[in-house]
């Protein structure tokens, strides 16, 4: 019996990881819901409004992007455009080469994972160090993040303590406070040694050119404190029209992502160090990354570009909770990833065409999304696309014969009667894979095909 890759991954997931993912996402969702409904009479109206603003941006990227470029340049920022992952890596490398830099400190950015920047730079003799605690642990383990905002959702503290011990960061100790202190001690002087700081951007505001970066550890501030050059790596869709939109978006992002009123550190960077400013990088670059996003924009799933990467849809998703992030084989896992990851592949869509199948279409993701993305509808569109492109879908029963039956009432009624054979035949002998798959988990109730119709006829007489 063939089942879907994500189902196999869930079945193979060890109990310790499964528990870590399940507990982490469940707690994240419950706190998020409490804080939103405690603080707002109707958070769903805020979600709808934020969704409309982001959809407006997505629909008008062609005017917002040039306007933003002009504003950034006016602010003294150098703007780079990267159409592919390779071009984005080259842009970062080019900037560093130009200043003779060899050491990079990084605040958390999913785009850098997406373009596989670390390996690219390493091959060219440049060391890049993750400074977000979760990403730092991922880097020590040569692992990948399993969650958009909690990259080590899949690890527990004992595993982390073992990683620290193995990497010479002190004897085994799984106290979170001790782990954090050790990471801090290790990272502090690295900030001073680095030449360049690389951050992502949660938002870039079109009217002001403000780059907004939020963290809970203050690591992006440390990154910017001693370096000469600041590189911002950001997807082309991360734009907000006006500064005042930040009031809505920062409030929704923090509550949806980490159940906070506000993320602890909110930085608004308007350009490189200005005259009269005592510190901060002298140079600032923004690298806008396309890497498949304009293809998404041209598709029927462009709504997914509203995403502000809060992770709420991962936390609430029952499939994510069972399978964990790595099952999605993508930088972006969970419901948002199931839409975005195959689309970002462009022509290589078939490689991840199974991801949109990994949903019971329960709609919980849509209900929690701070920008109200109709994720189930988008998953369905991609299922249709995969089918039209003839991409095989293991475990999904073929529907042709069913459609013929279901459009021929006489044949339908005959099938209802014929199905009674299931009540006498051991179902194990019926060679229908879907039935086998059903019975691997459940018992089928007795077949009562036609019984209701007969009853109704009697009642009417």
């Amino acid at each position: 019996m063939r089942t879907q890759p994500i189902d196999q991954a869930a079945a193979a997931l060890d109990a310790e990881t499964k528990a870590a993912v399940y507990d982490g996402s469940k707690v994240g969702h419950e706190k998020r819901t409490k804080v939103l409904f405690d603080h707002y009479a109707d958070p769903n109206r805020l979600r709808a409004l934020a969704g409309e603003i982001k959809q407006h941006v997505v629909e008008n990227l062609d005017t917002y992007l040039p306007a933003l470029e002009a504003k950034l340049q006016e602010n003294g920022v150098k703007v780079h455009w990267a159409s592919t992952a390779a071009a984005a890596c080259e842009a970062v490398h080019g900037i560093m080469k130009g200043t003779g830099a060899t050491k990079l400190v990084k605040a958390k950015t999913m785009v850098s994972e997406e373009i596989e920047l670390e390996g690219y730079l390493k091959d060219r003799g440049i060391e890049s160090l993750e400074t977000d605690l979760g990403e730092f642990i991922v880097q020590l383990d040569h692992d990948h993040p399993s969650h958009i905002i909690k990259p080590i959702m899949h690890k527990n503290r004992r595993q982390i303590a073992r990683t620290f011990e193995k990497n010479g960061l002190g004897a085994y100790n799984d106290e979170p406070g001790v782990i954090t202190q050790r990471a801090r001690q290790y990272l502090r002087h690295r900030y001073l040694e680095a030449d360049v700081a690389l951050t992502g951007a949660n938002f870039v505001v079109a009217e002001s050119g403000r780059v907004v970066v939020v963290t809970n550890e203050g690591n992006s501030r440390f990154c910017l404190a001693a370096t000469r050059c600041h590189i911002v790596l950001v997807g082309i869709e991360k734009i907000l029209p006006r500064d005042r939109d930040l009031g809505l978006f920062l409030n929704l992002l923090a509550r949806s992502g980490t159940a906070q009123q506000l993320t602890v550190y909110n930085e608004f960077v308007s350009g490189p160090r200005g005259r009269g400013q005592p510190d901060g990088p002298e140079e600032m670059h923004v690298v806008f990354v396309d890497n498949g996003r304009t293809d998404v924009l041209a598709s029927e799933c462009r709504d997914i570009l509203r995403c502000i990467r809060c992770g709420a849809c991962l936390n609430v998703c029952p499939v994510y909770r069972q399978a964990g992030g790595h099952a999605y084989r993508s930088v972006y896992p969970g419901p948002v990833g199931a839409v975005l990851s195959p689309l970002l592949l462009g022509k290589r869509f078939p490689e991840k065409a199974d991801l949109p199948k990994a949903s019971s279409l329960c709609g919980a993701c849509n209900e929690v999304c701070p920008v109200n993305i109709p994720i189930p509808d988008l998953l369905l569109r991609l299922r249709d696309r995969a089918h039209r492109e003839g991409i095989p879908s293991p475990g999904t029963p073929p529907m042709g014969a069913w459609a013929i039956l279901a459009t021929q009432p006489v044949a339908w009624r005959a099938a209802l009667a014929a199905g009674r054979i299931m009540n006498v035949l051991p179902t194990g002998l019926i060679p229908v894979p879907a039935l086998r798959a059903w019975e691997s988990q459940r018992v089928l109730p007795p077949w009562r095909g036609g019984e209701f119709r007969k009853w109704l006829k009697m009642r009417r007489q």
Partner: protein
Amino acid sequence: MLTDGRTPLSGKRVQLMATCLCDAFHADAAKATVEVLERLGCEVVFPEGQTCCGQPAFNGGDWTASRKVVRHAVRTFESDDPVVVPSGSCAAMLFHGAKLEFEHEPDLGEVVALGRKTWELGDFIVNGLGVRSWPGRFDASIALHRSCHTRGTGSSDAVALLLGSIAGVRMVEFGEGEQCCGFGGTFSVAFPHISGAMGSLKLDHVRAANPDVLVSGDMGCLMHLGGIANKAGKPIRTMHFAQILRDAAAGLP
């Protein structure tokens, strides 16, 4: 709400869509639906040509096959009378899903019209007919599983209101009520491990609340959950809410 823009009700004649699951497996839930609607004074018409709402193929990704079945439903339920469905899932297929797959089709208008006259049973009784309480008696504690395809509609609250109004009924809450049971149509066979694990988790929560009956407005969820419980050798009593309404009012004039 997903059900906004629905055609206002006039008259009390309704078309019953029994759903393929009730047609094949859960005859009693369909019978109960008829009896409940008749108790409310409705004239229940059952178009004999009906088959399925088209959702299995829609969710499975075969929209060409699904559209054929939806077109058949449009023809079968051609009368202007409201279509009442004892399933939140099949109802949502008609007022939401079908619109999506007909977006670029010339007959989108007819599909939208079918959606606008389609009601999930509980929503129809409470928000359509304005019924706020149910007569009779049913002595049981009830855990209500709010099926996912009633999100964004008035169905689950309507069902909770009706059940809670019955003398003898005690509604019990259980943990993580907003989580899916794991059925998901073709998902249940393409992702058997995840689907089964989701169902077992739901059952654990339900059992912890120790209800006499697990109730839902969707036989898909109940077939899946009941099937897991039976397979594990720990059967659980499941009923469609229409069965509760019928049984509560049994013997009343």
